[in-house]
């Protein structure tokens, strides 16, 4: 199988830039990153089809090995539609987030912060047990037997 090396390099650059952007906290940059990732993957799928060739429409005069591989193209079409839907959803979500907080940044989880600030001391489990709660010993610590009182 022959591979177009330019495509592979471009794929690598797109994916690297995409993953870098996804790691940002700013949501619009994350969105841009996801779009780059989508395009990079589509290019990779295209590359996986092998060399270029004639359009894969059946024609008795064209020998079988001159067609290009139609399957990656079908896969790319599906992937484009899915990326499109996810992008639209993310845009809506970013807009909603902006409306609510007028910020474009992802904040930390409040429960996470709470847990990270917790101490190991647990009031219910670790506090000393009050000594005068037992009914089985008297004030000097001798066991109380039935009928003695």
């Amino acid at each position, binding site marked *: 199988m022959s591979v177009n090396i330019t495509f592979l390099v471009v794929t690598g650059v797109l994916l690297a830039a995409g993953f870098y952007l996804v790691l940002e906290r700013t949501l619009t940059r994350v969105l841009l990153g*996801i779009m780059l990732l989508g395009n990079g993957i589509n290019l990779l799928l295209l590359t996986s089809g092998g060399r270029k060739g004639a359009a894969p429409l059946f024609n008795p005069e064209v020998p079988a090995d001159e067609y290009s591989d139609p399957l990656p193209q079908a896969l790319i079409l599906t992937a484009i539609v899915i990326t499109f839907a996810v992008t639209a*959803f993310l845009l809506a979500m970013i807009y909603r987030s902006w409306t609510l907080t007028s910020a474009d940044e992802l904040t930390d989880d409040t*429960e996470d912060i709470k847990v990270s600030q917790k101490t190991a001391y647990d009031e219910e489990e670790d506090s000393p047990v009050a000594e005068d709660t037992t009914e089985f010993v008297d004030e000097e610590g001798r066991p109380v037997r039935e009928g003695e009182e």
Partner: protein
Amino acid sequence: MNFLDLAPLAVVLPIFGAGAAFLARRQVRMQRLITIGILTLTLVLEAGMLAAVWGGESYAIHIGGWDSPFGIALMVDGFSSFMLLVSTVVSLAVLLFATSQGLADGDEPGPVSIFHPAYLILLAGVSNAFLAADLFNLYVGFEILLTASYVLLTLGGTAERIRAGTTYVVVSVVSSVIFLMAIAMIYAATGTVNMADLAVKLPELGQGPQLILHVLLLIAFGIKAAVFPLSLWLPDSYPTAPAPVTAVFAGLLTKVGVYAIVRTETLLFPGGSVNAGLLVVSALTMVIGILGALAQTDFKRMLSFTLTSHIGYLIFGVAVGGPLAIAATIYYVGHHIIVQTSLFMVAGLIERRAGSSNVTRLGSLAKLSPALSLLFFIPAINLGGIPPFSGFLGKFGLLHAAAQHADPLTWVVIGAGLLTSLLTLLTIIRVWARVFWRRAADAEVPNQELVAEATQVADETLAGGAQNPRLGLKLAKQLEADSLPWGMRYATGSLVLAGIALTVFAGPIFEFCERVAAELIAREPYISSILPF
């Protein structure tokens, strides 16, 4: 015409149902009727499918009459139909729970009416992923269920849910990207995406390319299945969603990832070349997950951590390999789906009953809510692995299989598994002691309503005295019935019963799992029923 030719309906019915439910978005009652009807129909169909392959048959459906490996094939075998049936049972119970909640709250037509269509789409995606017999169709199944889950997770669009949803969406998209990358490379290397065809062609590749493809697939599925260190998104995003949504996510979504991992390990890469890595990962998943659960004060977050922790057992089973371990894994998947979903439903009930799912605010519920206590107690000790419940049987099967031919590493992981089981029990006991057992007045942040109700019930018991000792209980039941609609209680109860059924019928079910495991390991039935030669 074979009955199993109807299998695509498991995907098609929910999709058409979703369309119909969306058209009926202004008529809430109609929408509920459609959704419940469609799910019941799917359930009957899938029960029939499971019965047809119970003996260990596998049946391939070639969509559009295109022969494999050129067309899209769907695979009905023991594993896929078992997962289909369990997932539909769970989603029907959750749907009834949600419907009852909606009835009680009187949800008006509006943006919320998107719940039913999105729910059905989610189920269509799950079914498609289970039935898919080629990698790209599996990817499409994942995308269908993920897109629906984005909508369900951010339902209502509050600031909290949007924040949690962002993490979830970005992580899911990245996992899909990695999955697609794997598909592209696999296609470049072998020229096919059909799983049966791949099972034949992948071994012809060299060790290096095989390992890369294998690990890429495992990373993609590992994010979806929430395997450590790819699991940290889950406890961050699940708990903020509405109770029914969290319940169904907890049951289904991660298990689709586990299903894909089992298929990858048994069908595509049967050599077990990364088993040592999987063993380490499974031990870390178990122990770190459960330590996370111990640190939480919010019940729903705690459950999310136990969810990721117990995924470790499933990965452990896959890593050990062999018929008994795989059989125990399949049994444990069924157990885990049902138990984890019922616990999340109980969390929803607790939140509704006491106004909070934060353990520091709760107490007295054993006295105030006897039925709820029972509904919590059974799945909780089941999760903790107390005999005779299915959690114990599944864990016993896994550890027994692992101990049969164990090397030192496996023994360490067995120890980790036992430790996790113990810590799960500790987590559960702490919840029981605080939420149900202690007095509401002793809570760190006492909830005045609960305290008042507890005093009321105690007074009533005293007033009843010896002649009428059940007076207090009667009041508690009355209070419970006022705050928890019967539909929600019965839906949760039916799922708890399903969990018990898994215990009672453990014999035949485990035998079935063993047949399925033998089939998975042999690979031959799968390959020969899809490929025509």
